[in-house]
């Protein structure tokens, strides 16, 4: 029982970040029909900014650690949104619905951004002091307070996104565009503006993941890219463009990883994940919730 709860807790911890990361990717795919390989760069930018803003705020401004972290979080999300708007306007808006064009463009942007991070921050891993010290005991499983907070914040953000998509006019427009862009335009939905909003929301989700991970793992200029392959596996399983699929897929992959990692070792877990993907493709080439063409 205790083991079960511990594995469940691990699954939620890992899954929370996967879900945020994959949600952004799948949302951008749904609206723009492109695969953004530079998505990890948003994550990295946010995490790097947190690592430099927290010391600045606590030392130079003299605010307490938690306030410094919150300040850094807002700054990080703001900067990522600006980067997002910039890369959208110089690049992505010209390759909407062009899979190969957007792939190569996003790779080009990824190279530029990673190079810039490397030039500014150097290659050494950077870290942030623990924001929430201590551990919490939940049903016999031990969790650090920080990781518990991560799960809660990620759940709140995911819930917020869900409400945004299901309950708001913007959400309706996003869904309409994802389903049938031409029909949506005929209904008077401004496609380009909706695409921009979808892109920025996706970028902000990656930034949230970066902000939440910064105090937990050390950050390097390529931190975000490590999530990319897993996020791809998640959205293959969940179905490209499906929000619910990304949530289920993210938690599922996190479960495979934490259970497999406990009983075997991490590389076996990765292989297991891969075999699952192949199995999925054989049975359902369009993912759990993807639509048949």
């Amino acid at each position, binding site marked *: 029982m205790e083991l079960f709860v511990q594995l469940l807790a691990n699954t939620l911890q890992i899954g929370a970040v996967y879900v945020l990361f994959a949600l952004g990717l799948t949302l951008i*795919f749904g609206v723009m*029909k492109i*695969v953004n390989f530079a998505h990890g760069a948003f994550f990295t930018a946010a995490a790097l900014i947190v690592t430099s803003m927290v010391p600045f705020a606590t030392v130079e401004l003299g605010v307490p650690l938690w306030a410094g972290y919150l300040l850094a979080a807002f700054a990080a999300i703001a900067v990522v949104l600006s980067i997002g708007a910039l890369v959208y306007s*110089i*690049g992505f808006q*010209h*390759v909407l619905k062009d*899979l*190969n*064009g957007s*792939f*190569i*463009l996003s*790779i*080009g*942007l*990824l*190279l*530029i*951004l*990673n*190079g*810039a991070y*490397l*030039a500014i921050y150097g290659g050494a891993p950077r870290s942030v002091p623990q924001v929430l010290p201590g551990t919490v005991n939940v049903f016999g499983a031990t969790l650090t307070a920080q990781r518990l907070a991560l799960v809660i914040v990620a759940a709140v953000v995911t819930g917020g996104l869900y409400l945004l998509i299901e309950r708001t006019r913007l959400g309706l427009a996003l869904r309409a565009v994802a389903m049938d862009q031409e029909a949506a335009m005929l209904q008077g939905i401004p496609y380009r503006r909706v695409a921009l909003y979808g892109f920025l929301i996706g970028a902000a989700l990656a930034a949230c993941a970066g902000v939440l991970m910064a105090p937990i793992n050390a950050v390097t200029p390529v931190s975000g890219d490590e999530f990319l*392959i897993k996020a*791809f*596996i998640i*959205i*293959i399983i969940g179905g*490209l463009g499906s929000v619910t699929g990304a949530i289920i897929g993210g938690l599922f992959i996190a479960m495979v990883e934490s259970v497999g990692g406990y009983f075997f070792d991490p*590389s076996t877990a*990765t*292989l297991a994940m*891969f075999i699952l*993907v*192949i199995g999925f*493709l*054989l049975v359902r*080439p*369009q*993912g759990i919730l993807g639509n048949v063409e």
Partner: protein
Amino acid sequence: MWNKSFGVWVCVALAISSVLFALLATNGYYASLLVWILTNAVLASALRFVLQIGELNIATAAFFGIGAYTTATTAVLLGWPFWLTLLLAPLMAAVLSALFGWVTLRTKGPYFLLVSFAVTEVIRLIYTQTNVIGGNSGLVGMFPPMAIDAYYPALAIALLAATLFALYGFERSDLGRLFKAIENNDAIPRSVGLNVVFLKVLCVVIASAAVGLAGGIHAYANTVIAPSDFAYFVAVLALAYVKIGGEGHPFGPILGAAVLTLVGQWVAGISAWENIFYGAVIVMTLRVFPGGLVGLAERARGLVTRSAR
């Protein structure tokens, strides 16, 4: 018509002079640079070959690696003869890519792109976790036999150039016509009784055999291989060569590989700026002249003939 065969003859002449250059060159650096350019040209041409059926195959990088590891493993660990190890590289790549294609080519577009990406990274992970083949540090010590050693660059260039001609030949054949038909509208070939999945797998197998051979050649040319040499990034660079050289023409990827490999030699070593440089070149090409260098040349020729009239 005259124009087309003229272009082919120019390429044959280029290939022969490259081989002669490698035979006569006193400085080994230039010969091995030429091998590296042609290796990249094969990678780019193979990527473009699969683009004929409309799919972006990131696993081009994986089959390059499989070729290299096949040759390196059989040469270093098993001590098999040189020619056999070189022959096994494309064979192994072809067999594994048939399996890969059979499973993954039921998907297309973004799914195929992502799956081929995942396969590439997982195969790289497998290398790093397998101690027999050197784990993270890879394999060392693939040397051609003494009798061949001095001529190896010339041999490599000849084989790589032959591979490029073979890919071109397939593209010009009826098979190439079928690949284009699949890309254009796959319902039509299906409706007249053709097995489209089989043809797609065949396309991937041909391209993978080509990069497999290039991988085997690379193993001997470099004498050292490591898992990180076969990350998805290899395919990204190959796509950059295709885009910058020009996707619309078989010579595009070769030109792109030559230009970017040479420029890459020049900016190499300053890693942050190297990334920024490649990134900027890719973004600029895509935005400013989407037809690549060949497209630019064709547009220039169009202007000249129009003004001549």
